[in-house]
């Protein structure tokens, strides 16, 4: 589904990704871990098409097609969803309007009939039950005045409605208490299916107790330096990220 080869990207003249490789197939859940500043969020934003980041080298193939040349809205219409680390507040636009516009843009692109207000409402009600979201949220402006936890939950709710093929969670767990974390994880797990791939970007292993990944990768200084299964996440939890430094130093010495 997704093939990233030797991806280099920079922002404001500073190189952040320095040759990332990653392959994600249908049905898989990948966790990308790494210390602050390693490039995790950059990778997530580059996949969604944020203009602040410039891809200088390498390629991203999504469903066999070049992703880099696609506008952000076209990526979304092709089934990519980024759950933002810092979801934007958009005063004056209700969640209902926003989400229906998003869904219908995607449906139109996929050649599926657009949903009218009534059909949309019944779809939304069904998804709300799964995620334990209050219906009043729909008439509120997008994320305006939402707590950190509400914003994250709203991201997962949007994901549940839009049903992407590739979902990227950018530190969705940051700032969540344990109850909110469980709700978010349930939402993600409900979406797990053989047709769908999920990338979970996180600093902590905690979320991975609830969303159990098939693969764990460590992004460090703009490169994937280690890959493994969920045991790797536990190891990182125990030892922190410091040991990577030493191991990498040694590798370099003996290389």
């Amino acid at each position, binding site marked *: 589904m997704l093939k990233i080869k030797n991806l280099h990207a920079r922002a404001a003249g500073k190189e952040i990704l320095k040759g990332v490789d990653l392959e994600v197939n249908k049905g898989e859940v990948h966790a990308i871990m790494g210390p602050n500043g390693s490039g995790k969020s950059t990778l997530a934003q580059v996949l969604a*098409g944020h203009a602040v980041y410039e891809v200088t080298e390498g390629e991203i193939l999504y469903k066999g097609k070049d992703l880099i040349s696609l506008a952000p809205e076209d990526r979304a219409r092709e089934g990519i969803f980024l759950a933002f680390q810092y979801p934007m507040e958009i005063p*004056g636009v209700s969640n209902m309007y926003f989400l229906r516009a998003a869904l219908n843009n995607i449906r139109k*692109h996929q050649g599926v009939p657009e949903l009218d207000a009534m059909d949309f409402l019944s779809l939304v009600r069904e998804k709300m039950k799964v995620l334990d979201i209050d219906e009043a949220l729909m008439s509120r402006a997008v994320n305006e005045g939402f707590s950190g936890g509400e914003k994250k939950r709203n991201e997962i709710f949007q994901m549940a409605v839009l049903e992407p093929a590739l979902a990227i969670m950018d530190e969705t767990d940051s700032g969540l208490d344990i109850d909110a974390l469980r709700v978010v994880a349930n939402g993600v797990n409900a979406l797990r299916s053989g047709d769908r791939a999920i990338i979970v970007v996180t600093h902590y292993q905690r979320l991975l107790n609830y969303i159990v990944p098939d693969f764990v990768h460590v992004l460090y200084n703009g490169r994937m330096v280690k890959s493994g299964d969920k045991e790797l996440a536990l190891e990182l939890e125990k030892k922190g990220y410091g040991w990577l430094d030493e191991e990498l130093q040694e590798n370099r010495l003996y290389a």
Partner: protein
Amino acid sequence: MPEVKEATDSYFADFMRLEREANHFPAWLGELRKKALEEFAEAGFPTTRHEAWRFTNVSRIAETRWCAPETSANGAAASLLDRHAIPGVAARIVFVDGLFAPELSALENLPEGLQVVALRRAQQQPSGDLPGRWIESHLARHAAIGENAFVALNTAFFQDGALIHLAPGTDLKNPVHVLYLRASNGAHTATHPRTLVVTGHQSRGGIIESYVGQTDEACFTNAVTEIAVGEDSSVEHLKLQDEAENAFHVGTVQAVQARSSRFLSHSVSWGAALARHDINAVLAGEGAECTLNGLFQVTGQQHVDHHTCLDHAQPHCSSREYYRGVLDGRSTGVFNGAILVRKDAQKTDAIQSNKNLLLSEDAVINTKPELQILADDVRCTHGATVGQLDSEALFYLRARGIGLEAARHLLIRAFANEVIGRISFAPARQRLAERLLGRLSKGWTSEDSL
């Protein structure tokens, strides 16, 4: 300035003609008009050397020899009315090129306590008749001819306009709609519409004034509206300026508020080549509350100027002011928000905010608060912002599948809706929202509210 003198000279000839024809003026009004003409001639048209006109150059108005429009029954007025009538209003009074159009108006079965008449007809009633008395005790008593040359010009030349009166205790559910249509295609025509609103104590009502036009030639509208808000009563006023793109619009709205009254003013300005609005309220009685709410949206070479003045003359009054501007192309905008707190106006509570969205690099906004505070126990705050569309918000919308143009329009509409949303009459709100949408893009349609 000789050129300015010359510019005003021609108005004397017009005035003499008007005097000859207008035998229906009561004597006091004839005197008032003469005095207004003298004031106008004395002051002349303002130039950019006048502080209040620094950013708004009216030389094209001053240099043009304007004439009264030819009145001709044409289908243009009816089709303009079709587009701009608002459903569900309590009454509709329509003026076409300055003159009352009874056949387009809807003035039957008015709710009890409401009177809506054309000024000219009201003046023709026998003296001692109520509308005549209201006019005599309020007309030109609120909008001073000595302070603004355009007000003086209107007072000297107004041909007709609406008189709206609410008897004490009247509670008007739906607003009165006053439409000033410009449909004449004669070159260089000017109209001077005059509106007078008088409300008795403990009454409540709304007035919508629409200035709309479709003309091939440059035209000039010089409007004055006076609103006397009675004790303990509440008036909501919406002025919509959506004139033809070659029009000049200059207008003053002057409200005077009695004790414990509320005045809510909305100004929505998106038409005309040049539009200048003076919106002033005097909080003349204790405990009065005033909100000035405004939206301007311009593009191309358009120029729009709002000068507002909140005169806190008495203690324990509060005012709120929210103005938003959306400027695209090479358009220019001005917001000047004056707040005067007089010596006796202790416990004044005034908040002013002006936010502007510049959609192109060539658009310009001049925004300035002008606070003069002579009392010591007051709270006055003001803030102004000028910015572009938030690129992170745009990315967020696009990352959900909404295209760039649609995302831009969505954010602009959301910005403007903060102002439109304060209008309490839903059909007016909806009409404005639709018009905004139409102005943003012809291809973008949706019946849904945000």
